[in-house]
């Protein structure tokens, strides 16, 4: 086993290790028991768990509130899709420039904001502004499909496969599960590293962190780069899963908001928070859609979202720290010091 992974597992007690490996095992065996519809929901759960983890690195660890994370997933998706559609470059190769460009966007935003200590709501607005500018740019850029959207043509089933990200639900189930696990392990490793401790120090007390000699600017930039890289890779996978991209959808503020709700509802700054949040919120949205259709007999635009918004207010009013801290204590999975 990889030494980092080994060390991370070593930090868990027996009960935690069993629960963690049990969860991963159950998810790996999942497709044997799930139908097509439930598989599609789990694919979304994994996706939101992965991008939630990426956002959690910036906000939960480092305390920088980004409300424009759709910028990175959108850029990732668009760059990879354009390279595949126009030049036939397979998405696994195109993911490199896709992540590179997304990271470059993150560096520009970080450079603008962190140099001047722009934080909190101001930083949040700056991130929204960049996502909106990307939306307007892609809306008006004919080469990228414009407002009419960009489509990734389907491949004949005989040639479809993992290399071109063109397989069926089963392929994307394991792909997104792998992505979620990778981002989880990356977040765990980073949190245990020196950089992770610097992030926590910056989040808790920036002045004290500076006094300790931490290079705050560099650490914050590192957070935004890591976060952008994971989110853009997730964006590549998502684009090839959906096989279409629209600026009004890929760069929409609501996309960013849905991304960050998982970690906040699950438990900000915790490793399991984004996972639990995605497991609660994604099915909840689907259940509400199905429920309104069942109750009213037809789809009511807005009804399920209205209930979603109301539930969100209830969850945040009653669970100050998110669901996971309380839940983990009840399950006996909390760190020993907190039990």
């Amino acid at each position: 086993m990889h030494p980092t992974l080994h060390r991370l597992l070593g930090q868990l007690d027996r009960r935690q290790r069993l629960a963690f490996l049990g969860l991963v095992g159950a998810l790996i065996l999942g497709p044997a028991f799930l139908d097509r519809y439930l598989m599609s929901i789990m694919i979304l759960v994994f996706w939101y768990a992965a991008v939630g983890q990426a956002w959690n690195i910036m906000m939960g660890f480092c305390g920088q509130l980004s409300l424009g994370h759709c910028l990175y997933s959108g850029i990732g998706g668009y760059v990879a899709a354009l390279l595949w559609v126009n030049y036939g470059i397979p998405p696994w190769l195109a993911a490199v420039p896709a992540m590179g460009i997304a990271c470059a966007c993150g560096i520009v935003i970080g450079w603008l904001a962190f140099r001047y200590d722009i934080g909190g709501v101001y930083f949040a607005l700056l991130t929204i502004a960049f996502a909106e500018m990307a939306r307007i740019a892609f809306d008006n850029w004919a080469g990228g499909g414009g407002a009419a959207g960009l489509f990734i043509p389907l491949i004949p089933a005989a040639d479809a496969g993992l290399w071109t990200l063109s397989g069926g639900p089963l392929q994307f189930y394991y792909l997104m599960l792998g992505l979620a696990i990778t981002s989880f392990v990356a977040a765990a490793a980073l949190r245990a590293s020196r950089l992770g401790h610097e992030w926590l120090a910056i989040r808790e007390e920036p002045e004290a962190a500076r006094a300790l000699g931490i290079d705050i600017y560099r650490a914050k930039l590192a957070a935004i780069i890591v976060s952008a890289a994971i989110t853009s890779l997730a964006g590549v996978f998502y684009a090839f899963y959906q096989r279409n991209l629209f600026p009004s959808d890929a760069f929409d503020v609501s996309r960013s908001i849905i991304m960050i709700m998982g970690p906040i509802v699950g438990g900000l700054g915790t490793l399991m928070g984004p996972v639990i949040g995605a497991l609660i919120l994604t099915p909840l949205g689907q259940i509400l859609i199905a429920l309104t259709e069942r109750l009213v007999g037809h789809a009511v635009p807005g009804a399920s979202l209205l209930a979603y918004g109301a539930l969100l207010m209830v969850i945040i009013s009653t669970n100050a720290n998110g669901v996971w801290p309380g839940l983990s204590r009840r399950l006996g999975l909390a760190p020993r010091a907190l039990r």
Partner: protein
Amino acid sequence: MSLTLSASVIVQGVLTGLVYGLMALGLSVIFGIVRVVNFAHGEFAVLAMYIAYLLFFWLKLDPFLAALPIAALFFGVGYLLQRALINSFVARAEHDQFILMVGLAIVLVNGCLMIFGPEARHAELSYSLDSWLAGPLIIDAVRVYAAIGSLVVALMLLAFFRLTDTGTAIRACADNRLAAAIVGLDTRRLYALTFGLGLACVGAAGAMQTAIIDPNPSLAPGMTLLAFTVVIVGGLGSLIGALFAGILIGVAEALSSLVMAPSMKSLASFAVLVLVLVLRPQGLFGKGG
């Protein structure tokens, strides 16, 4: 592009900008004093637009007159909302407040969507298309009325904060909440008043906008962003700054939709925002630096 056309567009931008200014004033008051980020601001504006539309549709009440009862109603709503819900979030983290307000925003905008549907509603006023010629300039009548109305409400708010005891007490709360509580001010009541005043501004602004823009649920997020941009460009806590920045953004949008394309107009306001955040992060009229 002729000079007179540009001049007309600039005047139009100033007039629209004053309405933006009033909307942002509401956000600035809440943001600067209660320290809660009202991410449902644009949603409240759209709600006000729909109420104004309904009053016009049912009672033939002019939106500029409807602005008064709607502002009063929104004051009450804001007061109760702060007391019942938001007060318990004042001491909580920024992102918790954010989720609460986003939840509220989702409820409001989808409530409007369920009741009114996704297509825009149009209030056909007898003077909707009136315009005046001022020398070589063409000026829309409804924009002039909306600008004057916004300016009047804004000046009333400024006078309230400067001249009344309650206004002074609210400003004291903004300066130092702890000290205000120590000298015996009822901060909870003052916060509720402030939230009410903030919503009254956005209620009045929304009602008057019904004469210019057709209400439509999809307008809401853009309006929240716009109000935010104006507040931060103007400088947090500066009421004059919000009005001035409203005009600046209004002109920038009007000019960019003339020079580039109407769909690009919010690009201009974001460009102004980025410039201000880089060159003067505390905003044009903000304190310190």
